[in-house]
């Protein structure tokens, strides 16, 4: 067992579009066959682009529509039929959402819970990821299996007994309690992601630093860590968004001090639709930015699960 192989470089390579020479390089053939073949190739390529476009529209159009819904001026809110082209961009709905009782507090609680989750899950997970990447030891496969299995565990099962436990130790309805629960959810990802980051950094670099007189710790801090930083940042951002998005655990573990999704959930039945649209939009914005920032690591973050 050689352990995790770096998926990211291979993925990046595979995703490079073919060069023009490659595209034009079709074997020389007799004219009629060639014409037929290029016609078929063209038709097939149009079909592929069409499929790509339809799938992309399925994902992108709803995001566009919630943007229009959230930024519709107050006076046009109840227009019907709605126009797909925005009649004007206004912050009325978003202001109304932000002004609702407790929303700003809930927003900050979500941000802080996410930050605590990042610190805890990387603080605990990165050493484990490093161990998986750098050492061959007994129990390594067993540990990997535990991590892979815990990644799929239902949040419902954990949060209900935890709420009982939290009441006993006095962290029920606190940001820390929510963050600890989110850390449990994020930790398996943190271990796997940091593991794949460290395994892509050649061990020889650290060893070279050690032969030049660095202590193992110093070699890690001065050589491996700087190289791992972009990957670790991607892991941190991903961990943060896991926490930002959770609604079930936060709804179970908080009462008067909800995170943003839990706060929105409790108002869902009474709140006006424009308020809900603004809420969805505010929840959505960080997600879009996060995927943009970590787009290079997407396959590395998730794709490695098979190995």
């Amino acid at each position, binding site marked *: 067992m050689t352990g995790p192989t770096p998926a990211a470089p291979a993925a990046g390579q*595979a*995703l490079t579009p073919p060069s023009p020479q490659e595209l034009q390089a079709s074997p020389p053939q007799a004219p009629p066959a060639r014409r037929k073949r290029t016609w078929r190739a063209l038709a097939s390529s149009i079909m592929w682009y069409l499929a790509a476009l339809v799938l992309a529209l399925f994902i992108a159009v709803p995001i566009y529509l919630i943007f229009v819904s959230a930024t519709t001026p107050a006076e046009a809110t109840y227009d*019907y039929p709605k126009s797909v082209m925005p009649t004007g961009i206004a912050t009325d709905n978003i202001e109304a959402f932000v002004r609702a009782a407790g929303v700003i507090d809930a927003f900050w609680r979500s941000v802080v819970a996410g930050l605590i989750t990042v610190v805890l899950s990387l603080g605990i997970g990165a050493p484990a990821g490093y161990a998986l990447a750098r050492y061959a030891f007994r129990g390594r496969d067993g540990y990997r299996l*535990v991590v892979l299995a815990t990644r799929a*565990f239902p949040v419902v099962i954990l949060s209900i007994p935890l709420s009982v436990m939290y009441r006993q130790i006095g962290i029920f309805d606190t940001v820390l309690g929510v963050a600890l629960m989110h850390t449990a959810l994020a930790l398996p990802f943190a271990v796997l992601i940091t593991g794949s980051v460290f395994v892509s950094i050649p061990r020889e670099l650290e060893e070279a630093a050690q032969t030049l007189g660095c202590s193992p710790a110093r070699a890690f801090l001065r050589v491996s860590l700087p190289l791992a930083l972009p990957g670790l940042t991607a892991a941190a951002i991903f961990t943060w968004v896991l926490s930002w998005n959770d609604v079930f655990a936060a709804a179970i573990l908080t009462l008067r001090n909800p995170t943003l999704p839990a706060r929105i959930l409790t108002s869902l039945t009474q709140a006006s639709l424009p308020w809900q649209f603004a809420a969805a939009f505010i*929840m959505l914005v960080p997600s879009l930015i996060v995927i943009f920032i970590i787009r290079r690591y997407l396959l590395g973050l998730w794709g490695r699960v098979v190995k």
Partner: protein
Amino acid sequence: MTRRRNLAPYLLLAPSLLFLLFFFATPMASSFVLAFQDPAGAWSLDSIERMVNDPNFSRAVIATLTLVIVVIPVQLVLAMAMALVVNKRLKGTSLWLYVYALPLAISELAAGIVWVSIFTQRGWLNSILETLGIIERGVIWQSAEAYWTLIGIIVVAEAWRATSIMMIILVAGLQSIPDEYLEAAEVYGATLWQRVRRVILPMLRPSLQVALILRIILAIQVFATAIALAGTGLTVMSQQALKWANDIDNDHVAAAWAGLMLIISIVATIGVLWLLPVKDEQQA
């Protein structure tokens, strides 16, 4: 090798193992303990009886399982299509991948509300259909009486929100298939369907297995999309667990729900492993 060096990996793993023990193993065990106790703390089947005798019990179980059974095949086909497109290396592959991966970071609550804006009576779908003259009056999609329509719109929202994760896993799997295999199939005149059926699917089995298990377990926990879209017209298992924990304040019945969901998840996982066995040489 020195003794110190042998210990290093275990010291590095210890904090995460302790954390998982405290925040995974303990709650899981206490979930079952809670479920087999009554509110006074005595051992009994009272909580499980209360869960089963609740009028919402069969409603929630049937709706959740129906959603899982309908949404998983839809997502499998969508994820496979997206993965094939990404793997085809069309121009702008990274853009396609980025767009398909967008929902990966979108919360289920936000996703539910996004689709409310589309399916609500004065929403986008009716607006567009009416402008195009396809319908004359807005259709009430989210009617509490139209059960299957509700199932349908939740399936659409879940397919939109949660297909990305399967897509990413399948793309990674596709990239591990040597190009020569597909080229050979093409040289022998295999159609796209034949290539998918005879080469890609068999070679993709380990990825399919992981993607299915992960997605089914998550689908059993369907929560905020259903609440946002269906209101009272339909209820799901997590919603019942939340109701017992928060509104009724009975953690024992809530824990019984949690235990039931765990058992269903385990059965589904075993089912996938049994239907899609992966040979040892494929696992490496």
